[in-house]
Every structure is written in C-alpha cells, then in structure tokens.
C-alpha cells in the first residue's frame, strides 16, 4: 500500500514537471494558457493527494485555492487580457525551442543532483517532492527568461509559484495562514501585473519587453 501511495504522489509531481516542459514547448499564447491551467490542475490534484496521505485537511483548502484561482480565474482573466490587447497571434521566444528544452533538461538534472545531495536524511517522499518542486521553480524561471512577451513572462511567474506550493505541501510544515496569504499575494501580483501590462501597452504600443530596453537610458 505504501508503495502505491508513494507511486501516485510521485506520478503527480512528475506530471507537474512534464507539464512545465509542455509550457516551454508551446509557442502560442492561448495554448500556453491552456497548458498553464492544466499545470494548476495537476498541482491541485497533487496537493489533494498529499492532504489525503498526510491526513492534513488544511491542504484541501490549498488544493481548492489552486484549482479555483490558478486553474480557472487567472487563465480566464489572461485570456481576456490577450483578447483585449489583440496579441493572440503573436509570440516571440528569445531562443529556439530546442535549446530551451536542453536547458530545461539541464535544470531538472541540476535540481535532482542538488536535492538528493542536500536532503539525504529527510523522508523519501518529501525529498523527492522537493526535488520536483525545485525543478518546477527552475523551469518557471527559464520560461520567464525565454519569453519576450510580457504575458508569457506572467505565466512563467505563476508556474514558478506552483512549484513553491508543491514544495510547501511536500515539506509538511506550512501553516494554512501562510498558504492563504501567499495565494492572495499572487492574486494581487496578478492584478498589478495586469494593470501594468495595459500601462506598458499604452505607452509603447506593444507588450514586447525588449522595446523597454531602449528606454533604460544606457543606450541613448
């Protein structure tokens, strides 16, 4: 029984890493958003499973928050933003998909090596959850780095936060208050970013962040 419990937790966490890779592979904004919703869904499932096996009911709240906010509200809102900005057809990546994938593999390997070394004496399940969570965080960072489009960067930021939640649930220690406040701060960050996107667009007529470089003053 413990074998199966472990396997399912492992499977869900592994799926999260896989979905992160799927996000790296997408080159269209709507597809990226759909995959992001899937990412949040897998996260919710994973957290719910942890709640079940750790017998920790407050984690169900975390799972519900993840499902509600990240799988439904934020993707829908981002859909609207993309529609209003009229950028649903464009996406530019800084480097090609192939090198990005390779970098992603390197990051996953790095996460495993680091976590398996650092956390040798903790519970196996927690350790591997931490390894996966670190991988998801690093992949989220990679997604932010490789996108030129501000919406893509927002999605990268949100997926990074999913990795943090995964780490928190695996570590068996995060109080509910912290979890809820993190969720709300993410939502507020999202609102701020949303407003910011429109400001950027009003000012520069694009959400391509490379245009901002010329306003830094260094080159001019």
């Amino acid at each position, binding site marked *: 029984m413990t074998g199966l419990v472990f396997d399912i937790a492992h499977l869900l966490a592994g799926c999260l*890493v896989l979905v992160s890779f799927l996000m790296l592979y997408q080159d269209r904004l709507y597809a990226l958003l759909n995959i992001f919703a899937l990412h949040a869904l897998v996260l919710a499932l994973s957290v719910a499973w942890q709640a079940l096996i750790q017998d920790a009911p407050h984690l169900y709240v975390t799972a519900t928050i993840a499902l509600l906010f990240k799988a439904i509200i934020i993707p829908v809102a981002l859909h609207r933003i993309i529609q209003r900005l009229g950028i649903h057809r464009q996406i530019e990546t800084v480097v090609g998909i192939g090198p990005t994938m390779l970098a992603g593999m390197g990051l996953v390997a790095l996460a495993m090596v680091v976590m398996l070394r650092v956390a040798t004496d903790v519970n196996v399940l927690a350790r591997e959850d931490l390894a996966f969570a670190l991988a998801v965080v690093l992949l989220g960072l990679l997604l932010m780095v490789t996108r030129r489009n501000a919406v893509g960067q927002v999605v990268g930021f949100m997926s990074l936060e999913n990795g943090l939640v995964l780490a928190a649930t695996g570590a068996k220690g995060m109080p509910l208050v912290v979890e809820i406040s993190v969720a709300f701060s993410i939502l507020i960050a999202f609102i701020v970013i949303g407003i910011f996107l429109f400001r950027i667009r009003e000012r520069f007529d694009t959400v391509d962040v490379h245009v901002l470089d010329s306003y830094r003053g260094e080159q001019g």
Partner: protein
Amino acid sequence: MIAHFLVQGAQMALVLLLAPLLTGIVRKVKARLLRRRGASVFQPYRDLLKLLRKDVALAENASWLFRATPYLVFAVTWVAAALVPTFATGLVFSWAVDLIALAALLGSARFFLALAGMDVGTSFGGMGSSREVTIATLAEPAMLLIIFTLAFIAGSTQLSAIAAFMLSPEVGLRVSLGLALVALIMVAIAENARMPVDNPATHLELTMVHEAMVLEYSGRHLAMIEFAASLKLLLYVSLIACVFVPWGLASGGGGPAAYVIGAVTYAGKLTAAAVFLAVFETAVAKMRVFRVTEFLGAALMLGLLATLLLFVSRPP
C-alpha cells in the same frame, strides 16, 4: 519441441497475414471519420497482389543495390516483426528478442532504404533519403533512451523478461514508464511516417519523406516495400502492446487455451491501436518538415527525462 517451433512459425505467419489488415483498418477508419466510404479493409492485400503481378520498371543506371534492397528491407522487417511477442511470450526464439537488436534491425533496414533512394540519382530520392536520415538521427537516440529506461526498470533488455516484469505487481505506477510510453508513441509515429511527421497518402513533392525515397520503385519491388511498411507499423503496435499492455499474453508454459486468449486479446489490442491511430491522424495537421526536429526533440527530451527521473523514483 516441434510444437514450440510450430507456435513460433504461427507467429511468423500471423504477422505476415495481419500486417496489411492493420493498414487497411487504419485507412478505413480514417475514411469513415472523414465521412467517406473508404476502400474495404482488405484493399491492401489486393494492392499487394496487383503489384506483385506487375512488371518492374527499372532505371537504366540502377545498381544491384537498388534491386536487392526491397527484399532485404522486407526480410529484416519481417524478422523483427516476427520476434516481438504478439500473442505469447517465451517462444523458441524469445531469447533473441532484445530491444537493442530490434533497433539495430530496423536501423539497418532504414540504412539500405536510404542508400537505395540515392542509388538512381534522382533529386527526389536524394531529398527523401536526406530527410529520412535527419528524422532517424533524432528518432534513434530517443528509442535508445526509451530502451535504457525500460532496461533500468525491468533489469533486462529482453522483451519477454520486460513483459513478465510488467505483469508482476512490483511495477507500480511510475512516472518514467508514462514518459517512456509517450516518447515511444512519438517515435513510432515518426518511424512509420504517420501523420504529423509525414503523410503516408500524399505525393506532394514538398512534404513527402518516405514516399520520396521509394518513388523509383515499381512492381514487386514496391510490393515488398509497402509490405515492409505495414509490417513495421504492426511491429510498433505489437511492441507498445507487449511492453505497456501485456495483459493476456500467453506465457511459455500455457496450453492451447492460453494461446487462444492471447490471440483474442492481441486482436483487440490491434483494433484499438488502429482506431486510436486513425482518430489521432484525423485530429492533427501535418507539420512542416522543419518542425519535425522539434517534435522528435521532444520525444528525445521525454526519454531523457524518463531516464533522469528513474534516479529519484527508486523504491525506498
């Protein structure tokens, strides 16, 4: 002892008999999904018979390689397809069914086909060969990584041993196996020149890969090559079924009843795979040739990820 050889012989005949039927079912389901009536599922047999009766038109400068390749490709593919367990494991030649050997057999078939594509010296053949080899350079490493993953998990590269391990309760749910399955399906699609990678029904110059390579063939040579392509599709379906859905496979010591159960479940698996393939092919669009490297790169990446994740998913 003779009975053992008979069972092995039955398997060899079975793959030969079923391969065109599988192709026929895929075409039929695809046609029905497009609201066409479609040819009968037995049409591939008729096509093969017709081709066998026709004369061969050879280019003047075709060498012996060009003439020998169809038979070679057919023979090698047949051997590979006949070795993969279809309805039973533990046959006489099961000791030879090594995944790496299978990859090598298919690789040599592809090697000769690519050579033959360039033999006559037409531009299409050369282009097809070049594309085929481009695809192969990505598909084969992905295949090898999948093999490594399976070998790590099951402790053997022998298909019978892997199938036996997959049937035992100690497998559990593993991320790596899921990743390997997805990667194997992607490799199978690319290797069989199926839809998102290559359209098996097209003769449009810009997009064809496999068809461009065999464009110069006619008559019985073409029949051999088409037959080999059907066999290869059957081989991949059998391989996926044997490794990932091994239920119903008759093991070595089973009596005739076990063989019958094995045959029936095998037929079910083949039909399911044919319908799945047809639905998938109808649902996706052909991708640009230059996107294929990304598609296979993803398969390679999945294989690599599966191998990497094995190091964390070792049972406690």
